């Protein structure tokens, strides 16, 4: 009986931390869903998240208003993403190369500008506990004792779902991602739709980075995203380009990431290297399964992903 309670407590702790850990990846991944549905792949999420994280810290330290800091974080990342948009949509460059360049640029710029902010103390975004609901045995801590950004994340993912599937812009977005020539023939502003999608993706990635520094670690450190941006791109594929499933995939990844310290803290002696492999193993396996499933069902990648769009090309 005691073991059952201990295990239940352990699982609750894992899920609670999973949501905190996965929230930043979820923001970036949902942004990437919007961008990829429009046909533009953005591999610069790592750099965008770093820019968002640093901007959030800077504005929080100088100003103190967390909402402003988050908004500035999103804005700064959107600014960096606009370079990607210009290169890829304006000049029809290779999307993969441009994305990686943005990633490296973001890492370098933030490393340089962030020197003065390593070790600076600030009040981040606190936990927001919903009064009565937080005491429910399992769902209490997991769902109702998180920081306010997690609640924002739930709204954002719902909003992304509605945007893509229930609005006119979403319709344009999907059509541009599947067959831009047909959309162009229907007088959809293809370039503009794509640019907005990339900027939105960048904005959300910036908020994801802001969550990392303002609500999760309460600090800035060079390259603090440790690969989460790249994972976000993979999670988009795992989730089948669907925003709500992306949320789930991100939390799953978060759960596997926090498993390692949780197991160690519980005194369970597993090889740290094996446990640290789990999240990435999960991503590879899930990616493989997802691709097989998509090949069979026919649904999957937006048909025009990564393809250039040139008006008038047949």
């Amino acid at each position: 009986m005691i073991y059952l309670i201990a295990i239940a407590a352990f699982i609750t702790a894992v899920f609670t931390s999973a949501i905190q850990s996965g929230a930043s990846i979820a923001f970036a991944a949902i942004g990437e869903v919007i961008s990829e549905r429009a046909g533009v792949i953005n591999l610069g999420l790592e750099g965008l998240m770093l820019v968002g994280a640093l901007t959030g810290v800077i504005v929080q330290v100088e100003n103190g208003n967390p909402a402003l800091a988050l908004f500035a974080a999103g804005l700064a990342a959107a600014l960096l993403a606009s370079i990607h948009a210009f290169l890829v949509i304006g000049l029809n460059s290779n999307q993969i190369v441009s994305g990686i360049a943005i990633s490296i640029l973001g890492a370098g710029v933030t490393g340089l500008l962030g020197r003065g902010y390593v070790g600076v103390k600030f009040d981040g975004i606190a936990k927001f506990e919903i009064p009565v609901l937080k005491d429910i045995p399992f769902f209490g801590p997991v769902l109702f004792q998180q920081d306010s950004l997690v609640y924002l994340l739930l709204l954002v993912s719902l909003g992304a779902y509605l945007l893509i599937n229930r609005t006119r812009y979403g319709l344009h977005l999907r059509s541009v991602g599947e067959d831009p020539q047909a959309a162009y023939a229907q007088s959809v502003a293809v370039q503009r739709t794509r640019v907005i999608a990339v900027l939105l993706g960048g904005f959300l990635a910036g908020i994801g980075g802001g969550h990392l520094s303002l609500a999760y670690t309460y600090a800035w450190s060079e390259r603090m995203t440790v690969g989460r941006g790249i994972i976000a791109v993979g999670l988009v594929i795992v989730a089948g380009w669907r925003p709500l499933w992306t949320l789930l995939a991100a939390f799953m990844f978060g759960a596997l990431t926090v498993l390692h310290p949780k197991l160690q803290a519980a005194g369970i002696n597993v090889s740290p290297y094996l446990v640290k492999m789990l999240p990435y193993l999960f991503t590879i396996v899930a990616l493989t399964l997802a691709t097989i499933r998509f090949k069979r069902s026919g649904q999957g990648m937006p048909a025009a992903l990564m393809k250039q769009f040139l008006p008038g090309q047949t």
Partner: protein
Amino acid sequence: MLERIRRQKSGSLYVSRPRWLTIALVLACLCTVIYLQSCTTQPASNLTDPPFGFEKNSGKLQVGFITVGPASDWGYNYQHNQGRLGMEARLRDKVHTVLAENIPENADVERVMQRMVDNGANLIYSTSYGYADSSMRVAKKNPNVTFMQALGLKQAENLGTYSLKVWEPAYVCGAVAAMTAKNEGRFGFIGAYPIPPIYWTVNAFAIGARSVNKAVNVDIVFTNSWNNPTAEAEAVKSLVDRGVKVIYVLVDSPIVGVQAAERAGVYSLAHFADLSSFAPKGWLTGSHWIWARLYEDVTQKVINKTWTNQPVSGGFKEGYVGLSPFGPAVNGATQEKARELSAKIAAGELDVFKGPLTDAQGKERVPAGQSLSTEAILSFDWAVQGVRGAPTK
């Protein structure tokens, strides 16, 4: 946007770009490349102003420091820089120091060391454990320059090694923690990798805590990185979830861990520097690395030309380590006891790793009456009884 699809006379399609745009893009790329090149190469014939700020003909000993991370990390690299500044303040007219920070542990550091030597360095302090092979290679190529490798294990004719006996303050930290958190049995420890520097600290911490309260257990979580804020924040959360009331943070930049412990309302201790400003309520004390004294002693020897390549090490006795300032939670009696323990260790009356010592699996490693030699401590790869979560050996 500006490209257009055109049709050749033969009927095939091609992409064309306005000529001015092509020329503009090519020029932009060239300019960027040339600008970046000029930033990184040194002015060729400017011998009076070498990079790094060394002064070739000033008569002072030119000392270069290389750190793996930023001096602003309030941790490992911060303390080395504090040591550099302290030494420079005390040997003001005799030395000129220069710091190169954020140099990664790969071929880059060899380049940086060689450039320092070429620009006039007489003595180079290589402060990161991972630089050991590189400093050995550069030392062999430059026999006229003295090299000091922190935490190194091999010496060369012009390369010496230095370390600190941090297990001494770690022991006292454990005792202070156990005296302050009187009825708590679960302590936590966040370490980077399962390597000797972590083991000798966590073992000393556990032994010190258990010397006050036999029921204390230390749960250790490895983040597998010297600097990974998300892993450190998560490690603190995991330990706090398990009911830990005291956390000792040993990573390059303990800020994140200490702050997370403060937010969770548990006591914190840290390695390297004084982080009391990050945890105003929960800070107890820490293992303070006082490099300034060591740097002063070694540099003075180089100036007097009495330097040898024998390993330099020291603890409380030499003044190379200390206890960080106490936090508000540590009462006067505990502080007195801590000072007493430090004095005993300095005088040689108290040996931290005195037997009998059993490891976490119950096997006796050091029999009663014996003690661990310094070499055994420097290659520590097992956890003492009381430390939970370390890999079994």
